[in-house]
């Protein structure tokens, strides 16, 4: 992975930069010791590592503002970092950049049940938000599998999702407002406790911008009352295609479940051997469908889902009869990653979205690729919204296997785009998929996105080298060629 060439001038000024940072963040908030920096050398994408120039852990918005202003004025780059659980290398350090960790922003500031929202600092974990309100029967809906560790600021930067997305939306649909700091130190508020602020939806474009537009220092999220009850049903099929068709049939019947997840045979076997969830071992595809809401609704809909599944050729069906059983159904899915980790020395977790009707084709092509590359693949899948997570198994100690796995992964993502899907459903582009952006976007598409970057951070100081394969200078992106009366337009009717 080619990263921007480090600026030796900045590296040479390290001592001076450390001193400036210590003046802003006193005490242990500035980390310059190599052994301690090592803890920050990568995020969840561990194939890429780089020691940061230094790490700074501010505690207040005023400090963040001063840090960014200093960096802006002195040509120093910044890599924002939440909990470092990102899977696309978004928080990968740069040798000439400060890693700005938000972990000390860990307080819940305000819980407002009457307006059904909570104001928290960005370093609070996703689960921490729910923990703060669950005593009163509320929760925060987006639930990435990493929710115990990942930060809410990181969730906004990645527009994270989870099994609840189909019914309750992604992060972007559940954030009401933020306080953020621009690279020049300007502190801004976008949104608040009210809905749909007037003007351009800058909060909307900040969400999912992977730390390229600003540093988030405070967050207002929607909270929801917990549904009265939830029940899940396991449905087994002879093929993944049938499973996919069953998902469409459920939706066509007007039912939007709280979650619909699918696993293919390799994933079922890996997880069953690991957690003994009680999954059937003789099916090719397993669906977990969860209904949530009032008990009467859940009881009614789960029967209907069962009937629909039978009509779609389900060869296995089991409805949870207790909370323990429901938890057991989910334990397999939730442990799919570690389960695959047990049967293979290493694996790559891919993330792409496809139109669901292309599932059969995509899985078949993946099997062919698996043969071609000589590597196994297991599939767990947010079936409701077409978000695939193929797990490519390899052994990094075997020469060439990592490269083959990466090529295999790239082929899968290209296939997602080819069938009308996208490169990432929830993990983001980061450095991992940066060089594949051209598969989906034209040069003009990418330039237009980068012009938005220029409106926020004209000198490319925030998280450079991520998301976009080429760094265009803003001046060059701004140029327009205008020649008067260039085109005549005889064919456009005028009235």
């Amino acid at each position, binding site marked *: 992975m080619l990263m921007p060439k480090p600026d030796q001038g900045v590296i040479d000024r390290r001592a001076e930069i450390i001193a400036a940072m210590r003046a802003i963040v006193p005490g242990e908030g500035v980390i310059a010791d190599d052994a301690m920096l090592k803890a920050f050398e990568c995020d969840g994408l561990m194939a890429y590592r780089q020691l940061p120039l230094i790490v700074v852990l501010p505690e207040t918005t005023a400090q963040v503002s001063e840090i960014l202003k200093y960096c802006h004025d002195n040509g120093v780059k910044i890599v924002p970092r939440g909990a470092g659980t990102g899977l696309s290398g978004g928080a990968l350090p740069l040798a000439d950049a400060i890693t700005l960790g938000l972990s000390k922003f860990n307080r819940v500031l305000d819980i*407002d*049940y009457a*307006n059904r929202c909570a104001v928290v600092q960005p370093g609070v974990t996703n689960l921490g938000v729910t923990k703060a309100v669950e005593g009163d029967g509320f929760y925060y809906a987006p639930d990435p599998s990493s929710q115990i560790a990942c930060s809410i600021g990181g969730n906004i930067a990645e527009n994270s999702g989870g099994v609840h997305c189909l019914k309750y939306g992604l992060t972007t649909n559940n954030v009401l407002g933020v306080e953020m700091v621009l690279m020049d130190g300007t502190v801004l*508020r976008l949104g*608040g406790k*009210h*809905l*749909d*602020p*007037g*003007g*351009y*939806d*800058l909060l*909307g*474009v900040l*969400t*999912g911008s992977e730390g390229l537009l600003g540093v988030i220092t405070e967050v207002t999220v929607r909270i929801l*009352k917990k*549904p*009265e009850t939830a029940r899940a049903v396991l449905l087994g099929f002879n093929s993944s295609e049938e499973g996919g068709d069953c998902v*469409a*049939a459920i*939706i*066509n019947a*007007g039912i*939007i479940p709280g979650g619909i997840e699918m696993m293919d045979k390799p994933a079922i076997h890996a997880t069953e051997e690991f957690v003994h969830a009680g999954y059937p071992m003789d099916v090719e595809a397993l669906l977990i469908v969860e209904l949530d809401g*009032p008990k009467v*609704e859940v009881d*009614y*809909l789960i029967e209907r889902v069962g009937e629909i599944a039978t009509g779609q050729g389900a060869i296995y069906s089991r409805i949870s009869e207790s909370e323990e059983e429901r938890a057991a159904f989910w334990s397999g899915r939730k442990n799919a990653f570690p389960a695959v980790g047990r049967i293979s020395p290493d694996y790559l977790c891919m993330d792409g*979205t496809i*139109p*669901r009707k292309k599932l059969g084709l995509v899985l078949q092509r993946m099997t062919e690729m698996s043969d071609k590359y000589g590597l196994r693949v297991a599939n767990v899948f947010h079936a*409701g919204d*077409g978000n695939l997570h193929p797990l490519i198994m390899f052994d990094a100690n075997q020469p060439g296997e990592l490269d083959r796995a990466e090529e295999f992964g790239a082929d899968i993502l290209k296939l997602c785009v080819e069938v009308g899907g*996208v490169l990432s459903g929830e993990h*983001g*582009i980061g450095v991992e998929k940066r060089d594949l952006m051209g598969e*989906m976007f*034209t040069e*003009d598409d990418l330039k*237009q*996105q980068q012009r*938005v*970057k*220029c409106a926020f951070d004209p000198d490319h100081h925030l998280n450079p080298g991520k998301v*976009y394969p080429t760094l265009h200078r803003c001046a060059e992106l*701004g140029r*327009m060629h*205008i*020649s008067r009366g*260039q*085109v*005549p*337009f005889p*064919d*456009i009717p*005028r*009235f």
Partner: protein
Amino acid sequence: MTEILKPDTADQVLDAVKWAVSEATPLDVRGTGSKAGFGRPVQAGRVLDLSNLAGITDYDPGELVLTAGPATPMTEIEQALAETNQELAFEPMDMSVLYGTDAGAGTLGGVIAANLSGPRRIKTGAARDHFLGFQAVSGRGEVFKSGGKVMKNVTGFDLSKLMAGSFGTLAVMTQVSVKVLPRPEKTRTILLMGADDTHAVAALCDALGSSHEVAGAAHLPASVAARSAVGYVSGAGTSVTAVRVEGPGPSVEHRCNSLRDLFAPFGAVEELHSHNSAAFWREVRDAAPFTGDWQDHQVWRVSVSPTAGPTVGQHLRARLGGEVYYDWGGGLIWFALDARSDAGAADIRRVIRDCGGHATLVRAAADVRQAAPVFQPQPGPLADLSKRVKEAFDPEGILNPGRMTAGV
């Protein structure tokens, strides 16, 4: 006379914008012009009429995604969706009701460009939340796209969000994709009669803070309720507070019973069945109480946190007279006042200054909208950033200049 450019294809849109750039001639970008009364009057010598870019190009109910030309009439979209028992869950308001123009004249592109929504906003979001992707021509005369035709996507910046609510000032959309959802099987509305503002707030907070998935919450003072076309509402002779529940039959029944119990301590309770319920929420959605005899009044849409609603409503009336009603769950106050030259803008914005919301002038004569800031003025640094975003798409100011902000 204003010249009208009427392209038939996305390529022709590109040609038209390129030409406008080269001639330095701003364009007034239109679907069918049904929302010409929303926003500041555009200063442009030429109209770019997109009405030929219409038609649904791709719709598969099982995928929950619909792709169409931007000028596809909402009536056509709604009909196609109804055939498969689906809908646009964000319940976009029909602005022609407020403007007294031809009903159902709106287009899908217009709905997105104005980021419209209805009372289901609290539960399901606004247009922005359902807008998955688009193709467009920027004010630079370049074709670009963003987003996609799938439900989950974090691939590059989410420019769809910027387009939603940008009123055609950033780029001309030539194709749009939206998320659609199944229609609820059943709808019921529980009414609380005669509650004063304080009790209404308490009742609505209880309902919205419950697990009953309320999909609409409104409060109509007596004078506003009296103008409803729904007998149960207009006949009440008092204020009406309403919550809506939707879903499968048995679930709706169960939740209605719980909500009736919850409302009982606050006063008399009634129920609206499907037809009445639909009519009532359409009125709330479209600001219908401020049409007919009220057509000559100026109308504001004020957005504050829901609990700030009643205080703000009271202050608005005390200062400026007029009438309010609350699309409560969305923290929305609809406010109508006697026409005046500044539409009361300064006073209204003073009222909401301390509670962190915003006010938008949605109906007033063109000269008033020209003079008074229609959208909430932004603090300096935010206004600067918005201006830089505009320039990133349309540096020459070719597209709908002045529609959102004077001089931008």
